[in-house]
């Protein structure tokens, strides 16, 4: 039987075994060094006390709110899809439209950037530029990007579409690049040995290896884009968020519950779809 290296390392040494002999067995500690364990424990305790002390909770306000909270929970049993039906329909359609366009454009842009950000197939200058783009896109929050883009491009779904495309690039390029870096060189080299051009090499040597993962990730990102599109409306970037915000502001919990139920159902549908498609491509 072959034993992996770390298994061998985890076995106690001879002297340790001798020490353990005749003693009661004790569970091995998660953090082995005892000073580090104590330091982390005490530090965490001090931090927790300080944190909890500084959180101001207005308990009477919370207590008052429990009633409203219960009203909201009970609204889920009687969601109101009708009285704001046209607003909900329009907002949902806009969210879905933003999701589709942003996913298509984002994926189309992130494929070349993902190729560039893989160290094993791209030269260093291209690699650095593409990794830089990925880092910027990942560091900026969607909602902050949306605020800036709304300020620049005006209210409406265009700002939301640009925000989601931008966020898609960071997510997908990074994961695609990691997938390409982990691919098998052998197949790619075999294609190259036939005298294939660079494009043919990518198309027949690299693409078939990463395609299942790319499809899975694209659908996953589409799912994320839909969930994110639900909040972009809060800052005026289009989608269902604006309707949802209005519903909360007017304490129309039955409408809010209807919107939330719709979001959950659509996300579940996406998840089911992605499960089916991933099972087929893998």
């Amino acid at each position, binding site marked *: 039987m072959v034993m992996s290296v770390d298994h061998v390392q985890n076995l106690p040494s001879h002297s340790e075994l001798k020490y353990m002999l005749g003693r009661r067995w004790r569970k091995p500690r998660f953090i082995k060094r005892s000073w580090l364990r104590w330091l982390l424990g005490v530090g965490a305790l001090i931090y927790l006390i300080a944190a909890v002390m500084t959180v101001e909770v207005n308990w009477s306000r919370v207590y008052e709110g429990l009633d409203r*909270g219960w009203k909201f929970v009970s609204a889920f049993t009687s969601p109101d899809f009708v009285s704001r039906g046209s607003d909900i329909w329009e907002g949902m359609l806009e969210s879905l439209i*933003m999701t589709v366009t942003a996913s298509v454009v984002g994926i189309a842009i992130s494929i070349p950037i993902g190729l560039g950000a893989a160290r094993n197939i791209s030269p260093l200058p291209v690699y650095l530029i593409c990794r830089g783009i990925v880092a910027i896109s990942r*560091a*900026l929050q969607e909602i902050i990007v949306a605020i800036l883009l709304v300020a620049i491009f005006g209210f*409406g779904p265009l700002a939301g579409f640009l925000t989601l495309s931008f966020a898609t690039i960071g997510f997908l390029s990074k994961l695609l690049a990691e997938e390409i870096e982990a691919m098998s060189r052998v197949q790619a080299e075999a294609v190259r040995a036939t005298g294939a051009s660079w494009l043919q090499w990518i198309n027949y040597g690299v693409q078939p290896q990463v395609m299942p993962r790319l499809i899975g990730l694209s659908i996953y990102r589409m799912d994320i884009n839909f*969930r994110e599109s639900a909040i972009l409306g809060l800052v005026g970037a289009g989608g269902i968020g604006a309707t949802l915000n209005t519903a*909360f502001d007017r304490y129309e919990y039955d409408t809010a519950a209807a919107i939330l139920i719709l979001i959950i159902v659509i996300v*579940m549908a996406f998840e089911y779809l992605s499960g089916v498609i991933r099972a087929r491509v893998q």
Partner: protein
Amino acid sequence: MVTLQKEGVMSWRRRTTGRALLGWFGWLMGVALFMYCWQQISASTTWFFVWDAPRVAEDIWSRATPPRWEYIAKLGRPIWDTLNIATLGTLIALCFAVPVAFLAARNTTPSALFIRPIALLIIVSSRSINSLIWALLLIAIIGPGVFAGIAAIAIRSIGFCAKLLYEAIEEIDETQVEAIVATGASRWQVMAYGIVPQIMPAFAGIAVFRWDINIRESTVLGLVGAGGIGLQLSASLNVLAWPQVSLILLVILAAVVLGEWVSAKIRGAII
């Protein structure tokens, strides 16, 4: 293998004619859908603003630089609040996520027919709704403030942590569990000695990973009034104080990068 006969020569093809046509039809429908969606976006866009965008962007940039550095003195408390929202929210979420994960995992759930679907429903509803929406809801219920932010982060994180954790539980090595069962251990002893040690590294990794995400999310929770540095951001945006906005954005960026660095270090130490 599919071949095509052309002038008496057999050549290789990837698909049959029917399948190729079907593929093209699929692409056609996809492109049509995309064009329809794009037209919808285009119709609800004021294109004048878009053509004007470079000038506006330049204008905002000139207003926002240089950042108002002295404002940083007022950001200490909001940053502390943001950190607390992320950390306490993650801790509370973990307390709830662990039992939910054990109820949802196929090999530990007490009843696959009744309890597992409920646990999965909790996970999916918590995951589908963004923390900003949870914050909106909680502010309407318990009023604005840090507490609403903590609760929003906690509720959003339960589903995420529970999902990853129950997948880890389902992937454990059953032989170790069997070995513990064979010693005559009780149900809880099997949990503690057979399952928990196996999922502990995954658990720690998930916790740190989610903490990193929560740092990002808690920076913007203030936009809807749930405490943290986002409150300052939205106040500055409302009065168009662009030098303050740029400083706050820089601070948020630094916090996010720092959070990612810390979590990468911890994960590196665990795994």
